C-alpha cells in the first residue's frame, strides 16, 4: 500500500464563491489582512500495486477532478 495524496483546487480564473464567503467571514472575525482565499479538496488514499502515481492520475481524470473547473496534482509519500 502506498500513501497517495490528491489535491483538487478550483481553476485559476474560475471564481470560488465559497472561498470568497470564508474570506468575508474571516474579515468579520477581525482578520483584516486576508486575501485570495481559495478552497479545494485534499483526498488521501492508499493504493496497492504498480505505479500508484499513474493510477492516481487516472482516477483524477476519470472521477476525482472535473477538468473544466478544477486543477489537480498528485503526491506520493516517499
Amino acid at each position, binding site marked *: 500500500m502506498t500513501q497517495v495524496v490528491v489535491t483538487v483546487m478550483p481553476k485559476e480564473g*474560475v471564481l470560488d*464563491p*465559497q472561498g470568497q*464567503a470564508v474570506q468575508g467571514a474571516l474579515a468579520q472575525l477581525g482578520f483584516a489582512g486576508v486575501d485570495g482565499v481559495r478552497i479545494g479538496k485534499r483526498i488521501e488514499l492508499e493504493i496497492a500495486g504498480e505505479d500508484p502515481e499513474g493510477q492516481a492520475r487516472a482516477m483524477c481524470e*476519470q*472521477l*476525482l477532478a*472535473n477538468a*473544466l*473547473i478544477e486543477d489537480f496534482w498528485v503526491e506520493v509519500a516517499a
Partner: protein
Amino acid sequence: MTVAVVRFPGSLDHDSARRAVERLGARAEYAWHADGELPAETTAVLLPGGFSYGDHLRCGAIASRAPVMAAVRRHAEAGGRVVGICNGFQVLCEAGLLPGALRRNATLSFVCRQMDLEVADAETPWTGGLPSGAGLSIPIKNNEGAWYGDPAAARVVLRYGPDNPLGSTGRVAGIASPAGNVMGLMPHPEEACDPLLGSTDGGLVLSGLLGRAA
C-alpha cells in the same frame, strides 16, 4: 411511448417523475444504475433529481460513471430524447452529454423556491411550442444549481427572470444539446404537473419526452 426513469442510489424524485410522465399519457419504467442496458421498449430517458451517491465529491460525478450511463449515452447519440432534472442535469454535464458544470449556489445555501422562467429558445421540443420570452412557473430546490460555462457554446432553452439566486452564468436555468434531443434543467417540472400543487407548466417541459426522436 416508454420513458426510462433512471434510479441511482440516492435518487429522490424518480417516483414524482414517474407519476408526472404517466399524467402525460406515457408509460414509465425504472432503469437501474448497475444495469448496462435500458428497458427494451425505452423511447426516451429521464434522469431524476436527488442526491445520487450523497452528492459526494461533485454532484452527479459518481452517477455519471455508473454502468447505465453508457446505455443512456448510446440512446442520446442515436438522437433519442433525454432530460436530466436537477441532479440529472448535473449527471448529464459530468457525463459530457451537455456542456458546462453546475457549481455551488451564489447564496451558498440550498434554495427551495417557486421560480419565474422564460423561454430562451422556442425551437427545442422542451418548451411545449411556447414562443421565445414566454413565461413559466416551476420550482427549484438545489444546493449546486449554478450552471457555469459559455452560454454561446450552449443551447440555452430556459432562463431565470431577474431573480437568479443561484448565480448561474447568463441566468441559465436549462440547456439543450446542439441537436436539442438532450435537455438538462435545474427547475423541477415533475413538481409542476398537477393543479393541486399550484402549477402545470412542468408538463410543457416533460412533453418533450413524448415527441419523435429528433
